[in-house]
């Protein structure tokens, strides 16, 4: 069983490296969103540092969204999903493996690079660390929640926009507690972090069952 999990994660990462530039695409998109905000709000550093965590988290949500529509659709189109349905491993494990691979390729690089982008919005060092930590814990929840939408839209042509509409409401709690956990001024930030962790674990279970059920309905 674990062999199937490892094979799936390895394959998806190999494809991400060869085609997607190993998360480079997600990082550049993240940088673009962070760069756009000051152009709209003006270069005032005090304002930017106050909304810094929010900017990084919104960029994180959007960066996760763009990678979602190809998560299952690519495999549905070329028949790999049918192959996975014939595997002894349950579809839930297949979904988890693909979510982990998607997170390693997009969510993890975002969390690790967020201190660098935090400089663009003049975050103080304390906020840099906390934002990175909250992103590290929160981005898996984004990947899991998004996977359900991606599975539902797997067999729908041009499902990218649809997925965003389906999953963004589900991501609201993660965004709220993520930004709360990142803001050093917020007194309740440690509870927010633990709730965020709880959200990640819960969304993992929900995604495994939900996305597998959505995929089970698919096929020719």
């Amino acid at each position, binding site marked *: 069983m674990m062999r199937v999990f490892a094979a799936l994660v390895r394959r998806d990462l190999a494809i991400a490296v060869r*085609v997607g530039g190993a998360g480079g695409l997600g990082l550049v998109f993240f940088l*673009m969103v962070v*760069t756009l905000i000051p152009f709209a709000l003006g*270069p005032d550093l005090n304002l930017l540092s106050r909304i810094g965590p929010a900017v990084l988290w919104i960029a994180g949500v959007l960066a996760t969204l763009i990678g979602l529509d190809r998560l299952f659709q690519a495999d549905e189109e070329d028949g790999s999903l049918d192959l996975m349905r014939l595997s002894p491993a349950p579809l839930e494990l297949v979904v988890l493996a693909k979510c982990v691979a998607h997170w390693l390729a997009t969510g993890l690089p975002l969390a690790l690079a967020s201190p660098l982008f935090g*400089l663009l919005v003049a975050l103080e060092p304390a906020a840099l660390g906390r934002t990175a930590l909250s992103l590290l814990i929160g981005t898996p929840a984004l990947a899991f929640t998004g996977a359900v939408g991606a599975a539902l839209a797997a067999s729908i042509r041009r499902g990218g926009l649809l997925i965003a509409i389906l999953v963004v409401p589900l991501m609201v709690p993660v965004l709220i507690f993520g930004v709360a956990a990142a803001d050093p001024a917020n007194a309740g930030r440690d509870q927010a972090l633990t709730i965020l962790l709880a959200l990640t674990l819960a969304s993992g279970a929900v995604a495994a069952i939900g996305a597998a059920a959505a995929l089970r309905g698919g096929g020719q």
Partner: protein
Amino acid sequence: MLTRLANPGFFMRVSGLALAPLAAAAALLFALGLYLAFFASPADYQQGETVRIMYIHVPAAWLALFFYSIMAVSALGTLVWRHPLADVSQRAAAPIGAAFTLVCLVTGSLWGKPMWGTYWVWDARLTSVLVLFLMYCGVLALWRAVDDPGRAARAVAVLTLVGAVNIPIVKYSVEWWSTLHQGPSVFRMGGPTIDPSMLRPLLVMALAFTLFGTALHLAGMRTEILRRRVRSLTLLQAERLERAAA
């Protein structure tokens, strides 16, 4: 000359000869530039020693634009003159240009810290370089997305030209944006009038950077030509398998 350069064989011979002297000249100029920068130029009355970062920050900014213009010319070569080496030159120039844009951003940020107290201020020129970096990333991302080299060459050429047309527009709007909110930026990067003793190291370093960049570009083009040959031979291999199996 341009047409004779068209056939890769001739280019490989010429670039092979030019590579070593170019690299040697670049190394020599670097040494001279570093000496001038650290020993033969005064500290700035206002910024003190940190002005020495200018000697790599400004040439890096210059190279970032220099390589984007090489890409723009190559794009014209691909779309208008159909020059076979145009796409090779463009594909070799992009990563080098992106790397120097990054150097410019990082050195600008390190230069800004002692003066502004933070690593990043949305200064008009630094912000324009950041937008240029995003455009470089766009070009590199488009390459990875399109797998057929012929189609990729045309797509990237169009993107580069559209980008090149937009650079002055972006530059103007970012300048306007930064003056709109902050008033004319208090500190001009490197001051409008650089006194001659600082100008000399700056020019030497700029020349050294340019030669170094050109050498990298030629080397990159040579490798790119080899990569295409490897690709076509691999395709040939697949066909030979087809015939062998039939």
